[in-house]
């Protein structure tokens, strides 16, 4: 039961991601999308570098280790 609940939660989260991105597209990007929000949150060199390290970690985690 817990697996079904967890998987349902992940699916709902993925669906909401798609829904929010579609809403942004439908507004002709007047409502910011995920990437724009992330780029907006990481305007400085330190935060942008941290985001880059996070992106690297994701790839390392999935493909190398």
């Amino acid at each position, binding site marked *: 039961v*817990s*697996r079904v609940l*967890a*998987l349902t*939660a*992940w699916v709902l*989260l993925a669906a*909401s*991601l798609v829904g*929010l991105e579609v809403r*942004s597209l439908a507004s002709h*990007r*007047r*409502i*910011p*999308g*995920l*990437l*724009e*929000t*992330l*780029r*907006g*949150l990481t*305007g400085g*060199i330190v935060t*942008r570098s941290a*985001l*880059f390290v996070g*992106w*690297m970690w*994701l*790839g*390392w*985690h*999935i*493909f*190398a*280790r």
Partner: protein
Amino acid sequence: VRPGCPGSIGSTPSATPSRARLGSAALGAGVLAVLLGFTTPFTTGADILTAVAFAAMAAVALRTALRQRTGGRGDVAGNGRARIGRAWLVWAGLFAALEVATYIGGWSGGRHAYPTLSSLLDTATGHVGTKALVALVWLALGWGLFGP
């Protein structure tokens, strides 16, 4: 900066990559994604190809940062403020909560009963095709975050 975005600044024509550059970048990403799809974690091949992706994206990020420095700041509205969607902050909070909940739940209930995003990705990357697709999404995410 998204060209055509109302109120945005910094979208100078020189900051927009040419079609040929975009095409070669997409082709390179496609080839790298397919190669990554064939790799196995904890091998030298996986290490090298992942490092190649790091180096390529670092070059893209550096080039973008240098261009933005000379051509104006991106990702900000006309009033100079960054555009941040509050709904995404809520989404990120829910994502973090679910990841933590499933991670902690897995201590006693087992990872199968409480799958984290990592364990779901492990399952997805068990096949060459899906692994190549995940690699392509990862590279596209990097381009979207650090590209022009």
